[in-house]
């Protein structure tokens, strides 16, 4: 019906090359992406693997094995009995919960004042707040250390918590969020005779729940992993947080060589956040891309 056309053969060749090229490109892409995933996951695998190898087995492997046939939970028992890991854990939970809770209250009140209340000096105060965002924590930690020491608050929860219960950035984030709630809602509430506090708690907070949750999660991550300030302010083991605890374990606990027990401790202190991440990964990633910074 149709004669062979000179264009046809040429086109066939182009089609083939294009097909082959895109297949090859895809294969290369997947190779490197999976390679990076392996690099990311390998330390986690290794820490779990090592944590279930017995002390004897681990130390007799000159060439470490990539799996174990006789997993043991003894290391986890050691981690909780030989060093006060449970204490570190509880401390960190108390520290994280209190810090986050107080911060949420403080920033909610401040964000409400900036977004809805009309008072003299509001704009000036806001600009001042914003300029505080540029102050690096490392600069003010020196005086804070001296202050807390002079106030005799070393090795107390107050000393650990108080300096980190405000965040200018989160105030800013929340203020932006509050401002997206239509002004008419506030006016309607005023007409109905609703008090400001009631409006804040019954209207703004529920509407802004997603942002508040994001801020909470980010703050929890930050608290759980904080190392520098607790290290400066605590030298009594009873007030160590997990980061300091793990450093203490590494340098003085178990005897230096009990790597499996150390890894068990590492698994235990990593688990809560990894669990949190697995549940909330969408929220966390969205929150971080909106305003988290690290590195």
């Amino acid at each position: 019906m149709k004669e062979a056309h000179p264009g046809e053969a040429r086109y066939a060749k182009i089609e083939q090359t294009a097909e082959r090229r895109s297949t090859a490109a895809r294969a290369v892409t997947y190779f490197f992406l999976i390679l990076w995933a392996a690099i990311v996951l390998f330390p986690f695998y290794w820490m779990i693997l090592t944590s279930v190898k017995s002390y004897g087995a681990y130390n007799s492997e000159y060439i470490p094995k990539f799996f174990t046939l006789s997993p043991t939970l003894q290391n986890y028992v050691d981690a909780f009995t030989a060093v006060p890991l449970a204490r570190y854990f509880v401390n960190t939970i108390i520290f994280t919960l209190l810090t986050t809770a107080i911060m949420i209250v403080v920033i909610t009140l401040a964000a409400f004042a900036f977004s809805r209340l009309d008072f003299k000096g509001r704009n000036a105060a806001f600009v001042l707040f914003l300029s505080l965002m540029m102050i690096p924590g490392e600069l003010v930690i020196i005086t804070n250390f001296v202050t807390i020491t002079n106030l005799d608050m070393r090795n107390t929860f107050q000393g650990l918590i108080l300096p980190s219960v405000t965040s200018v950035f989160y105030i800013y984030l929340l203020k932006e969020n509050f401002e997206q709630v239509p002004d008419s809602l506030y006016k309607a509430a005023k007409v109905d005779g609703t008090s400001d506090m009631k409006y804040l708690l019954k209207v703004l907070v529920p509407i802004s729940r997603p942002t508040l949750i994001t801020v909470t999660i980010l703050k929890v991550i930050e608290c759980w992993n904080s190392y520098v300030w607790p290290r400066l302010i605590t030298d009594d083991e009873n007030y160590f947080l997990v980061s300091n605890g793990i450093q203490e374990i590494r340098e003085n606990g178990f005897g230096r060589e009990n790597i499996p027990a150390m890894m068990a401790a590492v698994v235990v202190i990593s688990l809560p956040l990894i669990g949190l991440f697995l549940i909330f990964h969408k929220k966390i990633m969205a929150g971080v891309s909106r305003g988290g910074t690290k590195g």
Partner: protein
Amino acid sequence: MIKWKSRFNNIKGWLYLLPAILFLGFFMVYPLIDVFVYSFEEGYNSASQTYFGTGTYNYSYVLHDPYFLQALKNTFLLVVITVPLSTGIALLISVGLNSIKPLRNLLQTVYFLPYVTNTLAVGLVFMILFKKTAYSDGLVNLLIQWFGGESVDFIDGPYWAKMFVLCLYTIWVVMPFKILILTSALASVNQDYYKAARVDGTSKFRTFMRITLPMISPMLFYLVITGFIGAFKAYSDAVALFGTNLNAAGMNTIVGYVYDMLYGDSGGYPSYASAAAIILFAIVLTITCINLLISRKNVHY
């Protein structure tokens, strides 16, 4: 009545702000001023809280302290190596990630995992992977030997080896944030640009250079700037790998130097710590300004 009401409103506004103002004033504004005061007080004694003069001696002491110079060198090396490398690799990964469909969400989640892990804890895993002990040369060294190389102790060995692990771990830690930012930047580029380029027969490489890169350049510069700032403040990565006595390991960073001056075996010198911290922030500020100037020239829209 109205006057009274408006005055009440003014007070109310400040009342809502009060907790934030108290905390920020006490733990941020006052310390900021105080740190400058400290840095110029000579011979401050933290026990008696006295000093015997003001001047720039603290700065000169810090700048002549071999530990500080070592920390300065380490920090600069870390910055120069990790910032371009991590940004570059993150860009490649994000481009790859954006070009695939199956597995994409899973990989994206996996890549983000290091962000939520405790730096100190995972640092220990890196340490045992790279460390040579009496029992075993460690996994990495065995791999090197398997490929016919000479094993080396990355944790207690030569400087370059320690620097290598520190850089590697730093990159591992900062990648999640960069990949996340870059993938969302890439995903927000209108697909029509790519379709138009494809219809015009634009090669993949040219599309990347002429369309993708300019489109995401604002985010790229943001990452470079925050990357510089973050890398200059490196500390806990080094602690995780080499322990708290970083000066002895020769792997201290500027921030580590500040803390060591403040507290611990070599601590008790808030004046030196303040001077070192201010020097660090002078450096960071300068570099950030230079970055901003360059980006203003190169980020087009």
